[in-house]
């Protein structure tokens, strides 16, 4: 059997694919963060809690209202997005003129409160949420057994990521958004309601987090703390990709998922530090991140 770095090719391919799946979550989450930072200049530390809320909304829908996974994919991001809009309107709005640090502190505090409330109510073991019946089972790819659901995660998150990138970078709406961050006064002079656009952007970014939460619910347990550790990694992904860079966050999300996956094979003990090591190295040589530009 052929080997790559002492590991059978088949196992190696399997690990690459697994990395890609985990990378999908990193990409979805870091994309939301990048959009919010790029357009609002807010470092949204509530992102992990909003991801968790997405999973919980899916759970509520299923257990309290009998609404299944597919509708949850649509409803949860809207519900959590609206929650985000309320936060933006009532709290974040006051902070745009201040240093990044204030936004970071506010959102971090909010995250702790939200997680605390959920943990108090639902404990820390999590709640069961099963894979939708259409996606149970899996496919033997020869080199690995790929659960259908994980395959779906890769495809769906790629579609979401690329369409977001397309909307922001290639459409008229996106150009308004980008212009509004560069020079809000001027854009407003053209008769565009900039504050509303910013609010909706925040709601959209938060909705992306909730969407990732719904997708994570069947794989990981629906757990009040599911976003708490993830968010740190995702921030590292954003920093490596370059704060505010849309494509950067997508590419780095998937890329780092793969690197982390391979670390789990070669030196599992380091698997939760490898991303930070990469972050340190990248910051040394490219302080603005791989895809970012210094402003």
């Amino acid at each position, binding site marked *: 059997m052929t080997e790559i770095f002492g590991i059978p090719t088949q196992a190696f391919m399997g*690990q690459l694919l697994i990395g890609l799946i*985990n990378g999908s979550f990193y990409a979805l989450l870091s994309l939301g963060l990048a959009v919010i930072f790029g357009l609002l200049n807010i470092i949204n530390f509530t992102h992990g809690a909003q991801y968790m809320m997405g999973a919980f909304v899916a759970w509520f829908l299923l257990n309290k209202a009998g609404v299944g996974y597919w509708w949850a994919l649509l409803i949860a991001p809207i519900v959590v997005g609206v929650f985000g809009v309320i936060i933006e309107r009532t709290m974040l709005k006051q902070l745009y003129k201040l240093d990044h640090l204030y936004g970071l502190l506010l959102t971090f505090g909010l995250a702790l409160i939200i997680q605390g409330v959920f943990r108090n109510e639902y404990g820390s*073991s999590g709640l069961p949420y099963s894979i939708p019946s259409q996606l149970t089972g899996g496919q033997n790819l020869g080199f690995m057994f790929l659960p259908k659901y994980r395959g779906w995660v890769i495809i769906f998150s790629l579609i979401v990521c690329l369409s977001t990138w397309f909307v922001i970078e290639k459409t008229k709406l996106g150009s308004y958004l980008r212009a509004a961050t560069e020079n809000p006064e001027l854009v407003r002079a053209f008769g565009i309601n900039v504050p509303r656009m910013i609010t909706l952007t925040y709601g959209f970014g938060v909705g992306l987090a909730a969407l990732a939460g719904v997708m994570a619910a069947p794989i990981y347990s629906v757990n009040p703390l599911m976003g708490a550790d993830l968010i740190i990694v995702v921030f590292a992904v954003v920093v490596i990709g370059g704060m505010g860079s849309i494509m950067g966050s997508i590419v780095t999300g998937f890329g780092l998922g793969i690197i982390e996956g391979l670390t789990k094979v070669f030196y599992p003990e380091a698997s939760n530090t490898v991303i930070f090591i990469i972050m340190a190295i990248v910051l040394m040589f490219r302080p603005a991140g791989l895809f970012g530009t210094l402003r």
Partner: protein
Amino acid sequence: MLRKLGIAAGVAMAMASAHAQISDGVIKIGVLNDQSSLYADISGQGGAVAARMAIEDFGAAKKGMKVEVITADHQNKPEVGSSIARQWYDRDGVDVIVDVPTSSVALAINQVTREKNKAFLVSGAATSDLTGKACSPNTIHWTYDTWMLAHGTGSAIVDTGKKSWFFLTADYAFGHALERDTEEVVVKAGGKVLGKVRHPLNAQDFSSFLLQAQSSKAQVIGLANAGGDTINSIKQAAEFGIVKGGQNLAGLLVFISDVHALGLPTAQGLIFTETFYWDRDDASRAFAKRFAPQYKGNMPTMVQAGIYSSVLHYLKAVEALKSDDGPKVIAKMKEMPTEDPLFGKGRIRQDGRKIHDAYLVEVKKPSESKGPWDYYKILATIPADKAFRPEKEGGCPLVK
């Protein structure tokens, strides 16, 4: 005359000191555990509930003994745990620390307690080193340990003829101890370990590790982890079709809270060892019925039951001794036979190991369960003298 006065003064002083044997007039119990992360549902706030129930059942108020419970979150970090313990012993007048899941933290508290000459009753932590090379005259290990789990669950599985194993191990003191003790059982029974992989504590995604386990072609994948890590490994193993592919999962440490979180469709058929099940007999059911309303409707885990049982016995020893001096109470506890509604009759050995029966349980199928928390079938009872490591084999210096 002067001499008589001197004797009287001496007697008075002796009496005064006898009276002051309970330090500050209060017996202060510190419940130290994970209250916010992956092990919080194993004991957490429910641990404090159990301790308070023990105080109530002991009848401390009627006996005129003042007993207080304080709690803290050690966040599964040994340094956080040690600094809380130091503060509790030095400043807050805590006499005994109970529970402490997370073996690395428990080993640190074991050290601090010995240094400060107080008392430590372990319920949540698993490592068998607490009654082995790290044993201490200040510590009693109450509920279960890695040796017991390895021999209870490991032997039961090896006996069915499944002899090639792969370990998925939490990368810290507990996981290493559980893996070591189970490997010993497997090898002794003529089995072999094809591989192992160590994952960081509180990992979310196990797919990569499971894939390695899958490609090892081992008959049994031993999960040497706990709490949230076990829940996620079992859930994701189901997703990757590991059991359907003919490999067996051995949850080496599974709590009822984990089964509750997994749900029966995923958890059914798992076989593991517990020392307490709430629905085992009338006494355990009566306890559970009182416990649940105080803890959001959750039934007690074996760790919470162990906290109840250990605090009850501690208070009996303090009463008998009329003192809360750490090592003296521990010595008294070892001297007195134990008895309570949850673990029945038992005793504490010189190495600090509390012994009682253990139960090999199997998780019911959804069709067999009558409702929430009706989860286990008891397959076998492992008698107390077989359930735990023989005293002489642990290497504890206290055993002569």
